[in-house]
């Protein structure tokens, strides 16, 4: 669907999913996507910001900690505050938590190992700009590839997130049951993705951009990009 929507992917030293993100967004938009270097604080006026996966700054200090203090992040935080949708995937999720746009933290996987496999996710909230083309309770297959994806927040924060419908995705088994076995990294309450209070910032560990084209073996991630573009073009 060609639109006039404009999107930017933020590129950090060590990002490695930035081009996949660009391809997925372009397929949904039919237009060009701005690749914006993190060192440039002057972020163009865009309708959507994607913070991609990778290993920004080699995960020095903590995953996402250095990138969260990059010059561009002040602009990203300001735009998020004005309601611009911000999607953070994997390292992008880590960066958004470190930048304070999302609560909690992503810790080392409970099993210590780097986890790289397809997982199944349950859509917990389908009433967001990111998930509008999914159904609540729908089970989708999306790959994960991370070492630090173990979502942690205190009980009070988790209760608040759940109470406000801010858990977007949970790790589940193929039938949609949220079980300990289906949790690849020890995330509290099987949380795979969360929203900010106003619903325009989503952080998630799984990679929807990696399954957004039949040529990649699946299209379960595609509705996220189609829905986002539909939402911002509306």
């Amino acid at each position, binding site marked *: 669907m060609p639109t006039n929507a404009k999107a930017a992917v933020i590129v950090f030293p060590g990002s490695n999913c930035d081009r996949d993100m660009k391809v997925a967004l372009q397929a949904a938009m039919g237009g060009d996507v701005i690749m914006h270097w993190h060192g440039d604080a002057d972020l163009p006026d865009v309708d959507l910001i994607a913070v991609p996966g990778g290993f920004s700054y080699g995960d020095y*200090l*903590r995953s996402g*900690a250095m990138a969260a*203090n990059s010059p561009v992040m002040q602009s990203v935080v300001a735009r998020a505050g004005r309601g611009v949708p911000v999607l953070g995937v994997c390292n992008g999720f880590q960066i958004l*938590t*470190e930048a304070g746009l999302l*609560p*909690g*933290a992503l*810790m*080392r*996987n*409970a*099993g*210590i190992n780097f986890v790289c496999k397809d997982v199944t996710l349950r859509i917990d909230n389908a009433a967001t700009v990111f998930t509008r083309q999914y159904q609540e309770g729908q089970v989708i297959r999306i790959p994960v590839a991370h070492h630090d994806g*173990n979502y*942690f*927040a205190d009980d009070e924060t988790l209760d608040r997130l759940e109470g406000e419908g801010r858990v977007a995705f949970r790790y589940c088994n193929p039938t949609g049951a949220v079980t300990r076995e289906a949790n690849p990294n*020890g995330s509290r309450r099987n949380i795979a993705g969360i929203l900010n209070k106003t619903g325009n910032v989503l952080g998630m560990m799984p990679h929807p951009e990696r399954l957004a084209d039949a040529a990649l073996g699946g299209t379960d991630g595609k509705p996220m990009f189609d829905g986002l573009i539909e939402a911002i073009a509306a």
Partner: protein
Amino acid sequence: MKAKVHVTLKSGVLDPQGKAVGHALESLGFSGVNDVRQGKYIELDLNETDADKARAAVEDMCRQLLANTVIENYSVEIAEG
């Protein structure tokens, strides 16, 4: 002045790396290790000559970057030299 910063996980926060180290120690035959918690040690060399100001500055650094206070505690030690 020099500042020595220890960053440790808050109690109640699971430490998978500490647990793995504990298991490794056990398999090496070191018995009697009840628990292992892993953290970070950071040394800073500062221009500041006033210990109180140095401590305040380093604590600010901890809050803004060196520690993630969602999951970590920090402690700061200021030393001459």
